[in-house]
């Protein structure tokens, strides 16, 4: 048995209020740079909706991820030779218009306009061409079902249930889906990279792009089914979510998690057996993939796993973190978290607790008691549309696991109401979903109360590498940038790498001169 540790995330969708704070803080931290204007490592999509880039889930169109061909796992867009033959023009690469053309406003006219009859207006200008433009799309254009009547029926996940979903204001259902890179166990982006620049870190499973090895062949961008690798059009290199590795290495949660207003994100370690990944990713039938991926995970309490981990050099504090991992509990113990699109066969590692709220809302509107488990269970069984839609996202269309999760959440709601109202807790409620009372209470604590230290159990990187964390971390595109704004000989970002300390000195000197 081989044991590897993976930093994973779980998002509790019931708690997401769609405020985009995660997106904005992530952008400020990572993609607030020229060449990356259109990029959101973290984005929040309204569902049903088209997502970002538009219709990214339609793999018949984009050919991202893996597929089974004759029982063998193959990149959906073709094998290695085909990739190399397409290298001069990637046929499946999204263009800027599939994301959106980034823009800004000429705010100066507001201040500089001469006295005139009409109030001056700041007009939108393209950040790409500099010309005036009409803003017609963005990363969250259909936010809160805005324009849903026009757009939402194009949501690829509505295929097959489109006639049942109504987009009239009162009759529809809606929830938010925050997305980051999945840091997959079987990453299709890495497999697509001709240069071998994308790698999975052996210690924590974070998938990174080596900025010095990337040659801009663009195959990762089409290879990733989640469309979470982006092309920096100024530097000509691929960039992606880094799981904020400079932060998690010192035990801090990612920026998106740290700033999450709803506190819906959980970060922790999951142990898995890398030798099982290929087999699990190659199982027949898309709906078997959720169970297959669960089968790759290892139990840190199992003494055999613990001794194998020790032999393979996984530090004791990492094992301890794996045992306390909130992510492991939600995925492996309570089984309330589900992977996003397991049918892409990349074995994603950012999992989601599907939202019960569409169901609760409907029960509430009918005037019935939305805290009562019998009502909720009945609603879960009858409300096929939200459940089928969720199943399309999380279990390749298999409604059973989604039903099971929703029933657990409904049971928890109902069971905890009795406790909160000072009534005798009803042990039959957790038993109805196969859980013990203690277990249900622990799950409630983790989902509802979840203090900072419980949500983020992140073991620090080991000090033997501490010296390298800041200065040698070349994969951090930001640090490889020259911030001075001077023209570089071979285009933006070219030239030798500037060490952070040196750069810092330059910035400070410049500031002193400015002030002087």
């Amino acid at each position, binding site marked *: 048995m081989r044991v590897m540790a993976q930093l994973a995330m779980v998002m509790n969708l019931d708690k997401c209020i769609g405020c985009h704070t995660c997106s904005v803080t992530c952008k400020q931290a990572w993609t607030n740079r020229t060449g990356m204007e259109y990029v959101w490592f973290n984005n929040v999509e309204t569902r049903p909706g088209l997502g970002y880039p538009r219709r990214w889930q339609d793999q018949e169109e984009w050919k991202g991820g893996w597929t089974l061909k004759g029982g063998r796992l193959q990149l959906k867009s073709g094998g*290695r*030779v085909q*990739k*190399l033959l397409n*290298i*001069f*023009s*990637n*046929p499946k*690469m999204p*263009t*800027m218009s599939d994301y959106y053309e980034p823009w800004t406003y000429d705010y100066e006219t507001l201040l500089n306009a001469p006295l005139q009859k009409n109030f001056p207006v700041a007009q939108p200008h393209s950040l*790409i*061409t*500099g010309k005036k433009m009409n803003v017609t799309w963005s990363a969250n254009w259909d936010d809160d079902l805005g324009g849903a009547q026009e757009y939402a029926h194009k949501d690829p996940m509505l295929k097959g249930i489109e006639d049942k979903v109504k987009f009239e204001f009162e009759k529809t259902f809606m929830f938010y889906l925050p997305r980051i890179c999945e840091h997959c166990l*079987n*990453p299709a982006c*890495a*497999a697509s*990279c*001709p*240069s*071998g620049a*994308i*790698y*999975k*870190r*052996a*210690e924590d499973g974070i998938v990174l792009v*080596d900025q*010095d090895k*990337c*040659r*801009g*062949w*663009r195959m990762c961008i089409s290879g990733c089914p989640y469309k979470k690798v982006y*092309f920096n*059009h*100024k*530097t*000509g*290199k691929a960039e992606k979510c880094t799981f904020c590795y400079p932060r998690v290495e010192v035990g801090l949660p990612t920026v998106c998690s740290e700033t999450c207003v709803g506190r819906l994100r959980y970060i922790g370690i999951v142990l898995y057996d890398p030798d099982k990944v290929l087999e699990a990713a190659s199982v027949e039938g898309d709906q078997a993939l959720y169970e297959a991926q669960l089968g790759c995970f290892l139990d840190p309490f199992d003494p055999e796993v613990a001794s194998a981990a020790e032999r393979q050099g996984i*530090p004791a504090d990492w094992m301890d973190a794996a045992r306390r991992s909130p992510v492991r509990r939600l995925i492996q113990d309570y089984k309330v978290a589900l992977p996003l699109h397991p049918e892409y066969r990349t074995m994603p590692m950012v999992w989601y607790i599907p939202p019960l709220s569409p169901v609760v809302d409907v029960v509430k509107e009918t005037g019935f008691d939305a805290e009562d488990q019998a009502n909720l269970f009945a609603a879960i069984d009858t409300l096929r549309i939200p459940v089928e839609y969720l199943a399309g996202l999380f279990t390749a269309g298999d409604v059973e696991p989604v039903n099971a999760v929703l029933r657990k959440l409904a049971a928890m709601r109902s069971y905890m109401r009795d406790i909160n109202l000072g009534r005798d807790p009803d042990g039959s409620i957790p038993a109805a979903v196969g859980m013990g009372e203690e277990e249900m209470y622990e799950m409630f604590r983790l989902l509802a109360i979840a203090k900072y230290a419980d949500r983020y159990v992140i073991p620090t*990187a*080991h*000090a*033997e*590498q501490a*010296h*390298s964390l800041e200065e040698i971390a070349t994969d951090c595109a930001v640090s*490889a940038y020259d911030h001075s704004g001077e023209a*570089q*000989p*071979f*285009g933006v*970002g*070219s*030239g*030798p*790498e500037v060490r952070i300390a040196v750069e810092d000195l330059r910035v400070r000197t410049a500031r002193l001169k400015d002030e002087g």
Partner: protein
Amino acid sequence: MNTLLWVVFPYVCLAIFVVGHWWRYKYDKFGWTTRSSQLYEDNLLKWGSPLFHFGMLGVVGGHIIGLLLPKGWTDAIGISESTYHAFALGGGLIAGAMALVGLVMLVYRRRTVRSVFKATTPMDKVMYLFLGAVILLGCWNTFASVVLHSSEHFNYRTTVSPWFRGIFYGQPDAALMTGVPLGFQLHALLAFALFALWPFTRLVHVFSAPLGYLTRPYVVYRSRDVRAGAGAGNRAPQRGWERPSLDDARK
């Protein structure tokens, strides 16, 4: 003058080519990329780029055969002069036309699509000028030898090729190039100038052709940088601070 053009100049260009690449790789790994503009525009690129690149692969293959294989070798395996030329000119015309049409499309795209034009550096423009000139001259030479039958009076395999090979033997014979038609002379000189420019342009991506992709495992695992001899405690010890161990003693 002849020595300057046909001996000194090629060596200077090649020296810049070699040292330039070494320097660029050492100092500018981050800038070493194709600088693709596909994100901006796809409709022209999807025709122009494959046409140009596959055409260029053919052109380079043709030059390897024409310049590096001595005439004696093809004669030895019984390929007659006329057969050789039919193939060379036919292949050359097809590959050259592909490259030329592709280049025209790409340059047109670069000039007319504003986002692409804005992403064009001065170095790109200089490079396009030289590259375009070399390709145009090359096509003209091939075309002229077919249509004007100038090949009957001039055979580059007995003049240009031995001179070119001589550069690598260290004995280039400038006299071989003096009688060569002007088109060929210019083609060769501009090509060497392009070699000198090469390391300072996006052309460096040619040397990143990812052939290793065909054999490497799909998913690459890499460790955080670990340097031997750093640290204390449960990490690798500093140099000179290794703990005594029976395992090491037994080695």
